[in-house]
């Protein structure tokens, strides 16, 4: 059986985790879109702490002898999922980044061409 003390400490830890997420959300440091996965993992942790029996059942189900090992395996899996989603977010960002850099270069050239144009031609173009 999980000692009550451990359960309490874990629960406090999870509360701090949620508080940190909401604090960052409030400060608009995190986008809600990307916090969902953290909230989800917090939820999983909370369920495991409140119902430790689930962990025993889970470890028996997948055939891991000690529940703590099952916990580690599950943790690593969730962390992998989060890392993968981070990679996909970064990939999306780098695509938009490339597009933006190209647009900046194209606009910079147009500005440069306009600046180098003789004034009478500039007037012609604007009229």
């Amino acid at each position: 059986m999980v000692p009550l003390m451990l359960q309490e400490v874990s629960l406090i830890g999870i509360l701090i985790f949620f508080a940190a997420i909401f604090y960052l959300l409030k400060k608009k440091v995190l986008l809600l879109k990307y916090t969902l996965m953290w909230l989800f993992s917090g939820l999983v942790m909370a369920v495991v702490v409140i119902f430790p029996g689930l962990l025993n059942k889970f470890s028996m189900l997948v055939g891991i002898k000690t529940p703590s090992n099952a916990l580690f395996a599950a943790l690593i899996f969730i962390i992998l999922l989060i890392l993968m989603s981070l990679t996909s977010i970064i990939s999306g960002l780098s695509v938009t980044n490339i597009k933006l850099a190209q647009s900046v270069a194209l606009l910079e050239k147009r500005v440069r061409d306009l600046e180098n144009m003789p004034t009478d031609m500039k007037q012609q173009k604007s009229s």
Partner: protein
Amino acid sequence: MSSKPCKVLVIIPACNEELNINNVIIDLRRKVPEADYIIVNDCSSDRTGEICRKNGYNYLDLPVNLGIGGGVQAGYRYALENGYDIAIQHDGDGQHDPAYIKDLISPIINGKADIVIGSRFVTGEGYQSSGPRRLGINFLSGLIKLCCGVSIKDVTSGYRGVNRRFIQIYAAEYAQDYPEPEAIISAAMYGARILEMPVVMHERRGGTSSISAWKSIYYIIKVSLAILTYRPAFARRNP
């Protein structure tokens, strides 16, 4: 063949090419004076940008380094915005000889091809790349043939010409990192008629190549993966 003359743009990606860029432009102007060109200065840390500015060259200045894929794509976007009919990719390191540009253009003008690739291996003259690299190129060439049925010998050649339709396609979507083989696959998926024309390439005159021997393994794995995954990804996006 249309009656109005074709507007041709030569896209010259250049990253740290202060030793070569002048010669490339002088050579280009002498051999193909009728074509426009755009240098894409990929955030060079040397004097490439300064040389372009001082000589009044036509150039784009990328604010951050995007690599060859992003740089060439910027050139295609420029070609699209300015209404060019044909775009030629031509390296800024002196490996390519502008004299072949007319060979790359003519099959496109005659409507025989959508994309023309300047190939070192059709006649086997000039710089043929080193042994291990040749092996890698042949491997990728076989893989591309297997995956999409087009038979191209020089899949890594960055000397190519494309028509208006593929200027649009490449402006919207172009492979990054090592884009040449992947660009062939994507073109084939869009139903391009791809033709290889013999060209003679030089060994680079100065500076260092973008692909060191050390990175070759990464290159082969990355490009193979790109080729293998392109077809299913394409089918999903364009059902």
